[in-house]
């Protein structure tokens, strides 16, 4: 079965600083990868997804992610974090074309 590892449970960054959230996946074939964001008490919102093609994927809210097959990684980045980015971020891989398998999530705190 596929699995996703998000090694950082919590990350704190200063407003305006750059951000990188790590994600590693375990999957034999070409993975379909996603990043979702969840604000407290809310559902999940898709930030970006990768299926094929360009390994640098642009998403909403100024986020981007880079797929690196050699490292089995799909790290999420943002050049300048805003206080409104504080939330929980989930990396996910699609399994069997239907099911999302999520990582445990990374909670982002933004300090002013």
């Amino acid at each position, binding site marked *: 079965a596929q699995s996703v590892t998000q090694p950082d449970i919590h990350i704190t960054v200063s407003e305006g600083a750059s951000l990188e959230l790590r994600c590693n996946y375990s999957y034999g074939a070409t993975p*379909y990868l996603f990043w*979702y964001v969840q604000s407290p*008490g*809310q*559902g*999940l*919102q*898709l930030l970006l*997804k990768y*299926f094929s093609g360009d390994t640098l994927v642009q998403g909403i809210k100024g986020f981007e992610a880079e797929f690196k097959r050699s490292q089995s990684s799909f790290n999420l980045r943002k050049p300048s974090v805003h206080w409104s980015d504080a939330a929980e971020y*989930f990396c996910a891989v*699609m399994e069997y*074309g*239907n*099911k*999302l398998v*999520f*990582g*445990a*999530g990374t909670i982002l705190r933004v300090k002013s």
Partner: protein
Amino acid sequence: DAMVIQNPRYQVTQFGKPVTLSCSQTLNHNVMYWYQQKSSQAPKLLFHYYDKDFNNEADTPDNFQSRRPNTSFCFLDIRSPGLGDAAMYLCATRGGDFTDTQYFGPGTRLTVL
């Protein structure tokens, strides 16, 4: 405009008392999912429908059932809630192609007393 709607947003039930959570969608999507998300954990898929075809995850307890009477609506029934079933329940929908995005509702927070 809300696309995936979940009612109620908060549900309190008693131990062993059946409860039904509701999900509706305005996207006309083929696929509807139910996820369980316990506190500080990742969402975990319980089951999904592709049109009328029901697909249960192997480790979903029998206590959890689902109904999809039409394209727009899907229900999650918990027959005898236990304390361990307290969680956020997320509904999601997706179009017919696997490359389509899954859209999530805001969730229903279930408390079991």
